[in-house]
Structures are given as C-alpha cells and as structure tokens.
C-alpha cells in the first residue's frame, strides 16, 4: 500500500504524497515542484547571510527516498529546480553524481521556471522544456487548465504549525514547494482565488489531510491557534 492521499483530477487518479510530491500511478510519473537547489549558495554569493549549506543534500535525499519508494518511469520537475541559473551550474557540478544516479534508467523532465529560465543544461541528465503540453499540461505557472504547476508554494497554518499544501481546483492542480529552503504563500492569499474557487487543499505532514480552500469557507478561521506562542 502506497502512502498518501488519493484523489481524482481531470479524469485521472493521483496520489498526494506526505513529502509534497505527486504520484501519477497510471503513467508511472513522479512530479515535484520548486526544489530551489543552490539557495544558500546564492545568498552567500550575493554577500548575504551564510546560511547552513545543507539544503541541497537534504532536498535531494528526500527526492531520492521518493524515487526509491515508487520507482517511477518518469520524473518531472515543475520549474525553479535551481534558485538561479548560476546555482544550476554550481549544483549540477557539485551534485552531478547524485542527480545522475537518481535519473539513471528513467525519463527526467526539467520544466524551466522563473528562477532558472536558462540553466546550464549540459551537466544535467534529462530533457529541458518550457512546458509539457498534453491532456493535462505540466508547467511552472498555472495557465490554461487542466494543468499541473508549481511556483506558488502553497501552505497553510493550523494548530500553530505550518503545512505545505497541494491546491486542487476544477482545472488546476498546484504542488507545494519540495525544496528545503522554501517559504510558503498562505492559501488564503487572493492569488489563489481564481485558480481554485470552491477547491480544496491537501496539507502535507506525517499524513496528508484535506481542508477546504478559504474561498470555499464561510469565514476564515485561520490563525485561531497561532497567536498563543
């Protein structure tokens, strides 16, 4: 039994994994969004804070665990895999062996994001695309549905804890950010309203659980518990 929360979207069966990855069993496809690899390196390069430089190893280890658990035929990264194009070449060089091992024997698709529009592709296995058309399109930023996208980093707070979320609307499915050093945009933000009217969110923790999008609620009860700290 594979862990996660099963749901239907655009006529297909999917599984929302506790890790924030999406599993499409019929296609043997694993989808992740917004890895933001190389973020601490970019901050340091720009003379900012010297953040703990462990997030790439952390993100890739969690991705490796998903690949080991599901053995996908195809892996799709929905853009912003790298925090910028410079980070892409830095990380690709440093983590080349790790990424090659993950991609070995599978299709690997990199969708370009706004952070990594022209990443140095030479060092990386797989194919780069601006988006992947189809009955269900894969792209970085949601556009004509039905599509599966990233970019928004949806998250919510409940009982004083932040949860990364899938956002499931009629024609859009938005993935949470998978990268370790990523923040979240609260699903109550107006930016989500046109994408998921009367939709639901799937919150990722040790288990995945559903809650309605704030637009589908009578009153937003967010923050009811978060002021206690």
């Amino acid at each position: 039994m594979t862990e996660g929360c099963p749901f239907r979207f655009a006529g297909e069966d999917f599984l929302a994994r506790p890790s924030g990855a999406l599993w499409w069993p019929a296609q043997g496809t694993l989808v992740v969004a917004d890895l933001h690899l190389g973020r601490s390196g970019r901050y340091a390069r720009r003379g900012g804070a010297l953040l703990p430089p462990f997030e790439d190893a952390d993100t890739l280890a969690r991705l490796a665990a998903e690949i080991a658990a599901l053995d996908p035929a195809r892996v799709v990264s929905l853009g912003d895999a790298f925090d910028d194009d410079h980070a892409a070449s830095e990380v690709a060089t440093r983590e080349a062996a790790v990424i090659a091992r993950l991609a070995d024997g599978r299709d690997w698709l990199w969708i370009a994001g706004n952070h990594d529009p022209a990443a140095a592709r030479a060092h990386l296995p797989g194919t780069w695309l601006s988006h992947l058309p189809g009955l269900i399109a894969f792209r970085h930023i949601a556009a004509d549905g039905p599509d599966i996208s990233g970019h928004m980093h949806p998250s919510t707070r409940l009982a004083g804890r932040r949860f990364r979320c899938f956002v499931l609307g009629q024609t859009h499915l938005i993935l949470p950010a998978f990268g370790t050093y990523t923040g979240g945009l609260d699903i109550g933000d107006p930016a989500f309203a046109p994408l998921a009217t009367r939709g639901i969110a799937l919150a990722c923790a040790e288990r995945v659980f559903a809650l309605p999008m704030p637009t589908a609620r009578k009153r937003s009860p967010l923050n009811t518990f978060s002021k206690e700290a």
Partner: protein
Amino acid sequence: MTLPPLFSDWFAGNGWQPHPHQLALLAARGDTLLIAPTGGGKTLAGFLPSLVDLHLNPGKGLHTLYVSPLKALTADVGRNLARPITDMDLAIRVGDRTGDTPTSQRRRQRADPPEILLTTPESLALMLSWPEAAKMFSSLKRVVLDELHALAESKRGDQLMLGLARLKRLAPGVQTTGLSATVEDPAALAWFMGAESVLQADPGPAPDIALLPTLQPPPWAGGGGRYAVPDVLDAVAGAKTTIIFLNTRAQAELFFQALWLANDQALPIGLHHGALAREARQRVEAAMAAGELRAVVATGSLDLGIDWGNVDLVIQVGAPRNIKRLVQRIGRANHRYNAPSRARIVAANRFEVIECVAALEAARAGELDGEPRGPGPLDVLIQQILLTACAAPFDANALYAEVITAGPYRALSRDDFDACLDFAATGGYALRIYERWQRLVLRGGLWQLRDPRAARDLRMNIGTITEAEKLKVRRRGRGGGPLGEIEETFAASLSPGDTFLLGGQVLRYDRIRDLVMEVTPTPGREPKIATFSGLKFATSTELSQRMLRVLADPDRHAELPQNIRDWLALQARFSALPRPGTLLCETFPRAGRWHLVIYGFAGQNAHQTLGLLVTRQMEGLGLDPLGFLATDHALMITSLQPVTDVAPLLTTPGLEQGLEDWIAASSLMKRSFRAVATIAGLIQRNRPGARKTGKQATFSSDIIYDTLRRHDPGHILLRATRDEARRGLIDFDRIADMIARNPQIGPRALPRVSPLAAPLLLELGRVRLAGEGQLRLAEKMARDLMEEAGLNRVRGDD
C-alpha cells in the same frame, strides 16, 4: 577631587547641599557603582566629576560618554545638565547621539564631538563600528552608565560591556561610573561592570505602601483591574500627580478607556506605552513635565527614570510579579529625596490579592528577588566581532584579550572565541563550502571584511533587541497621522472591518498598504480585541514561595480581605488548597481539551522544565499533549486525552529519555534560535531596500533551525541557542528532588476549572509542542472545516 568654590556656591545659591554620595563619588578613584534610590540626585552625582574636571582642566575633544537604556532619557538628562552648566557659565557642550539624531548632526559630532555625549548602547555600538572611532574616543576620560540594573537584565548589557571594553582600550585610564536603582546583589552588578567599589546612598525613609481599598471585591479571574476604576479615580483626585502602572499594553489600553468612561470630573489623564507612536508619547511626556496631567496610565515604558518631581502617588494595577520591580516603581513617587514614596496596589483578581499581600510584605522587609545572570552570550560576541571588522582590520589575539576584560566574558575560553570568529568568517559549518564567499578574510595576519560594502548591512542590524515584526498604524486618508504600531501576528488575525483598541481609541481596520495598516477611528463601537502581547513579567520564585506560605497557613488568612477568604474556602470545597510538602494536581475539561494543573509554587523555570518532562512522558503514553503554560505558581498542560494518573508521568527513571529531541522540537527552542540567529547576523532584520513580507520568497528561521539540527548538530549557534533556552530551565536533579519531596495529591478530576486554576487560562506565553497531538488537532480542525463547507471527503472531478 573635591568640590571647587564655584560649585559649592552654586549648591548654596539654590539652597541645596550636595548629598554625601555625590561628594563620595567625586572623590572616588577607579570604576565605581553607585546605588541610590530614585530621586537621590543620582544623575547629577554621575556627572559632577565630569563638570568639575572640565571646569578645572578644560580640554579638547570628547570627555564624557553617558549611556542610558532609553532615547527619551538622554533628552531628559540633556535638559537637566543644561541648568548647572548655564548657571555656572561652564564652557561645556552637551550633545546627544541616538537613533533619532539627524544625519547632519551625526556627521558634525564625528568631526568635532561635544565634551559630553549622551547615547544608548546601540548607538554606542554603531559609533564604535566607524573607522573614526579610535580617534574620536581617544580623548575620553569618563563613562557614565545610567540605569545599569535595567541594562544588565538583557543582552543589551552584554553588548554595552563589550563596548566598554573597547573604550577602555581606545582610551586607557578612562574612569567608569555605573548608576543603579536598588538591586538585590550589588556585588554581582559591580562585577558585571568591572567596578572596584560600590557606593550605597542613603535609601531614604521607608515607603508608604498598601493595598488600595476598593468598593467592589476583585473578580475571580482576569488581569485588567477595571473593577477598581472608581477607587483609582478617587485616589487620583486626592493626589497631585499619579502614575498608574499596568503590566501589559493591552491592559493599559483597556484600563485607560475604562477610566475615561468613568471620569466625571474630567481629570486630565494621559496614556503612555511602547506601542504608541513617538509623537504621541512625547506629547504625554511634555504634558507630564509641564504639570498639565493629573495622571498617566503607563506600562514598563515609564519604568525608567524620566524625572517628574511632581509625582506623589504610584498605583500599581495587577500583581507586580516581582518585588524588585515593585520597589523600583514605588520609587517613582515623590522624587524629593527624604519624603516617603506613596504607593497603592490594586490586585486584578483574587489570586493576585495573595500575591500582592506577599509582595507588600517582602517590600516592607526590603527583601529583593532576582536571578543570577549567566555568562556573556555568544551571539552578542559574534555581532561584536563583525562590527569590529567594520571599524578596522583586527588581530584575533588582541581582540580576545580585549573581550575577556568585559565582565560577562571574563570566563570566555579561547576555543569559544575562535568558534565565534569562525562563524563570523565562514559560517562555521562542518561542510566548508563558503571559503570563496567568506565574510571575514585573514590578510597579513589581520581579519577584515571580504567585501567592505557588507559593513552597511552589518551596521543596519546592530543591536540585541529582537522584537516581533511590527506594522505601523495610521489614520486613513490624506496625511493620516501615525497612531502607533501593532504586532504582525495580531494584524494577521484581523479582517477588514474588525475593530481594536490603540492609544485609547477604537479603530476600524480598513486595509494594509506598504506595511502600514490604515484605520478609521470608530468611537462608540465595541473593540473586538486588544491583544498585543507587550512584555510579560514572570513572578519571582521568592514571591511564589511567600505566596504558598500565606496560602498554606490558616492563621495568615485572617490578614486577607473577606472576599479572598471566601474564595479560598470555595477552592477548598471544590478541590483542595495547596499545602507545603504536597503537590496538588487537578484535571478538568475545557473547550474540547483536557487540562492538567500541577501547583508546584517553584517558579517559572522549574515549572517550564517540569512541563517539558511531563509532556514528553504524555507523548509516549499517547495522551497527545498540545502545549503547556508555566507560571510561577503552577504548570498547566493541555492535551487531547485526559490524564487519569499523574504518578507515571512523574517517575524519575526514564524522564530524561529522548528529552533532548523533545525540547529541541518545542517552540521554546525555536524562539531562542530566532533571537540568536538574528543577533549573530544569520537572519537579517533590516535589509537595505524593501522588507519582504510573508511571500513565498522568504522562509522561516524554523526551517534553518531544523536543517542545522539535522546536518550540523554541534554548530555554534545551536550551542548558543541551547545555552539561552537553558536559562529558562533548571537542572533535572532539582526537579527530581522536588517530586521526591512532594507526595502528590490526585489528580483531582474536576468537572470544570477550579477557582485557583481560572487565572492560568488567561496567561500568555504558552509553549507549543510539535507532537502527534498537534497534528491530530490540525486534522480535526481541517475535518470540521470540510464539514462546514459541505465537503465530507476529498473531491474527485465528479
């Protein structure tokens, strides 16, 4: 030095005599700590040696540096100094240098400093980070540290001591005077500032203090004290000028509003607290100084001494929480040296009456409380290292030698210093990938900034005060004036149209634009809420123990007002009264959660530690603890499942198992990490340019903390975090001892909250636990929302 004729004539001409401690300080050699009550001419005592020296030996350059914790205080001291200088026609210039000083004036001060410069610890740190620092401070002869007792309570004091160590190196022979209100351990404070001697001024007559008699009895619970408004108004009418202290800003707002509604005589009463706009505060301060107000409602923002000689009554509303603060607040009444201070206390609820009775008893006995302070924190040292590099390239050996002359860092090991230097330079991670981007580089044996432009960022992040992010509040419309600020978390809980209290006005939240909340005053509407946290004070252990003695001794109950005796009788009937030698425990359901209360009367730190231990056991037993609240009297744990047996939760063997991880994951540690990482410069408070707000680009310090803990558990910042969090904990042996000495009663399974537990429900400062209970609660909330929205399962595309 002795007093020159010009000065003694000046004293005599005003009909004054110098106080003995003013003359003693003039004669003192070396660094001295002066302890004097409010109104004892402390400030003049601190400056007299400078004035005399400058009169006898007029010289060039900066002579005296005065450091106070408050900007407002520097302005006040500047005004007070003007009088002797003008009267005696001394050729002395006084300038102040704080965050409010205009840039043009700062530049002039750097080129041509006044003889006396008044500043704050943060502005001093900034001045020391400029390349001109060495030249500017080389002429310095004296340093005066005002309100040192207040500064020593926080990391601001540690930063100040590091700054003082720098000044002593730049100006060898500089003489330091510390000025302090009454403290419990003068020797420790002297050690902290490196003083060779302590001068104690005559404490003056004993204060006149008592409970304020009230027409209505205090309510069962609550912290506002509004039941006493008519009595407080009568007291204000009967005095010349009154300061009314409340413990939190929200309470001050509500009390102020209640006073105005009942103010039939239209007494001029003002409001003063730290969340109000500077303009609003300055208006109140000016009105107070001019004697135009009969009373001011205030919080800790007035704890420190702006000198209002006409105040003749202090009213403390709500239990003072610690004896020292009560004594210092009492001292604000009657600044004439040898008149007794008059103060009245209003207990906010019945539980607090006992605390107030215990506090009055301790204050009369002159028994003060306080916790010994720990060694200098490493995050402050890291900031100091980075700022040192901003001023000039430095030698590590010389800097270490300088740092260990600062009181709090005397025991700092070279290894710890080197670890801090390594963090400042490269991040100090086990994985060395920042060599190319390191912040400090070693060139020719000296450490310096790799990129000199980084100095700007570092200077913008100076300071050790880490507060919640604030939003400015202003009136909507063209040129709407600033009203104050509120915490972002509070703002996030409001929806447009909601009303809240600020500055005594009911405001309607209209919208947020560019990090400013725009509001419209809506008089007459009920405010929705007024919770912004402000400061929370902990009751001292000493006071808790005094309370238990009052509670436990039936003979002492006779001292208590009748309504309190009734209340205690009710508690005894409903549950039981705490007794020394036993540990009273109660459980009751409330609002869908179970509560377990353990009355330890052992102080907040002990209860906090106990809370971590007990909840760890509860997690193991599947009781789904959600969080706990540790006060000084009791520990209250909330959980999803009820506790039926306390004994297994308190068994010592196994208590510590897995505890490190449990503590590490609690909000207690994450809060400490946020502060430590901010001070050490890992997280930036002020970025040049726009501040990012809650967008997906930023991620929380919790993520950095979790990553660091997983991948580099020995990192210096985690150590600094543990050191800091541990200050709020006590060692586990003492807890085991407390449990062993106190056979438990219970738990008494009650149908609802007991009279004694009711006040706990209103306290702030809960510690959240990241366990199964939290996840289950989130799932339940999500399920309820789904049902409310008419969605009872994950929708497919049907």
